[in-house]
């Protein structure tokens, strides 16, 4: 079943007529995701890969009963697009766009909370429940249906680790990218809670990086709540210098806070296995399940 997205998702693509929007709409359709409509202001009435395009979210929702959106709108207009999705009543909103100003992101998150919508991103590869639904830009063939829930702050690093998990025949229940920006819609704790009650998820791979304190909060949550499923963590940026943004807007050590070491220490103190290198994530998980088999 996985979390947040399944076969029942009826998605719209905001920014469907752009290069990225159109390209990924094709891949979403190929994967079997129900893309019921697209939205691009002033392009209503056209079609992209057979998907009808509307000028506004409300029209698309009214005509097709959409319940989710994936946003490819350029940074200057993306927050507005997300607010339109929130006000249009969509409950799962994936913002792929990078470079949205933090002030705008903060506003979007507050409005989403008010309307009971879940925002994934911004600056995220999205979410995939292998074999069921993809609402994202990740290369689908890397993922196989299985038992590991992946939650991550990055894109390609996640594909690297997911490929390792697929190769060990564990597969994934759902893989969700929180997004590489300083302010994003979901935290590790939010997603850990979802995985905890998801029947298909038997273990969690948590992929963090420098900046902020979401990893520390996750470690605290795991130890405080006595988290019931095994978690393996990986933290990128052990060699990152302070005060420098490492690609992601959110990957920055500020005033000594947000270092990889602080996150690793927090996980270890919480009894969470920390992988030293990406390939260790799948190895640690596989070892765990081999052991259980013989008990």
């Amino acid at each position, binding site marked *: 079943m996985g979390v947040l997205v399944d076969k029942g998702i009826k998605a719209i693509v905001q920014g469907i007529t752009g290069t990225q929007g159109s390209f990924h709409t094709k891949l979403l359709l190929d994967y079997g995701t129900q893309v019921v409509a697209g939205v691009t202001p002033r392009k209503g009435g056209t079609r992209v890969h057979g998907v009808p395009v509307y000028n506004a979210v409300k029209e698309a929702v009214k005509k097709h009963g959409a319940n989710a959106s994936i946003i490819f709108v350029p940074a200057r207009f993306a927050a507005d697009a997300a607010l339109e999705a929130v006000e249009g009543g969509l409950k799962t909103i994936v913002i792929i766009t990078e470079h949205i100003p933090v002030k705008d992101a903060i506003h979007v998150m507050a409005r989403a909370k008010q309307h009971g919508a879940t925002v994934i991103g911004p600056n995220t590869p999205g979410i995939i429940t292998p074999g069921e639904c993809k609402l994202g830009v990740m290369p689908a063939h890397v993922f196989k249906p299985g038992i590991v829930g992946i939650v991550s702050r990055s894109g390609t690093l996640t594909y690297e680790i997911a490929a390792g998990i697929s190769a060990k025949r564990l597969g994934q229940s759902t893989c969700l990218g929180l997004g590489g920006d300083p302010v994003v819609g979901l935290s590790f704790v939010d997603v850990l809670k979802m995985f905890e009650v998801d029947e298909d998820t038997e273990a969690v791979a948590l992929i963090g990086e420098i900046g902020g304190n979401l990893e520390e909060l996750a470690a605290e949550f795991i130890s405080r709540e006595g988290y019931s499923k095994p978690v393996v963590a990986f933290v990128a940026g052990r060699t990152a210098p302070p005060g420098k943004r490492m690609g992601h807007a959110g990957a920055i050590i500020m005033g000594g806070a947000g270092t990889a070491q602080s996150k690793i220490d927090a996980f270890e103190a919480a009894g969470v296995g920390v992988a030293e*290198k990406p390939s260790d994530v799948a190895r640690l998980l596989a070892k765990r399940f081999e052991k259980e088999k013989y008990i």
Partner: protein
Amino acid sequence: MKLFEHEAKTVFSNYEISTPQGGLATSPKRAREIAAQINAPVAVKAQVLVAGRGKAGGILFAVSPREAELAAKKLLNTEIKGFKVQSILVEEKIHVQRELYLSIAVDRSNRCYVAIASSEGGVEIEEIAAATPEKIVKVFVDPLHGFRLHHARQVAKRLGYSGSRMENLATVLLKLYEVAMDYDAELAEINPLVETPEGKFVAVDTRLIIDDNALYRHSEFERRLTEEGEAELPPLELEARKSGLAYVKLEGNVGVIGNGAGLVMTTLDVIQLYGGSPANFLDIGGGASADVMAAALNLVFSDPRVKVVFINILGGITRCDEVARGILGAKGRVGFLKPVVVRLVGTNEEEGRRILTNAGIHVLDSMEEAAKRAVEIAKTGG
């Protein structure tokens, strides 16, 4: 983008936050003139974008215009923490009764802005947090309602103020919030905010950092950034910025090019794990055209410390054969001036590998093996 102290102060005084009387000088003569106008003891402050400027000797005091001229002469010829002092701020020295700390910052995990204040200003907030955490007051700002005068009063009251001083302090904090919102600040900080014996509050040192992603809304600073660059950036980082590459200079000798921030950070970590030392972070993002790859290679090769370049690409939506053609195109254009180790996996990897192998470029498929190989070459020269 970090603003210089004098730029931030201009912004703050436009919002009626009082700042010391003074002026910017790029010559000792001008510093003397400004000091003469002020006609009182002055502080002479190096305009550099590094933290801990005071401790590094970047702030001098003078009691006469002649002394101000000498102080300026001294500062304008120095480097502070590796950065050349190109201008100085000459300001009247403010009488201190008490030094406070005020800021508006982004609270990432609570997804909101936060007002932070302390009665123990004058040192960095991290030091206050470590020494006297109980003396820090924080108020989270509801994004849908904003920070209001009554919130600001509450903060001033919690710092121990009442009456007109409470009102004055609250007004400064409210104005600071307005600056932060209007300028898309990641951080708007006054430290110290000096309370004078007369009960005035003066912003003696200020910091304003604008969210890079919002710079398009602040064209005056965006223009300065593209024209002059950010003075704190090393030359290679400035060049990278112009070509739109996410590059960070490090101290080692293994050059790195990869796609995706997390993957590149991890590549650096793995290099270190195997005993090597990365020379840079460079994320070329999605797609890897010959243009982008050539620009990336040029940049990494131009670092004299680099002994080997490790290209680590995981093809997702971007196909490996496209990446391979990009690498070949770049090789044709700039040449492989130093040894290059390529790791290429993902969509269409067989085709990608075939293209590169046919051109005599050896391709590895494990990131860890490739990192080991690159470290070995850096140590032995091949």
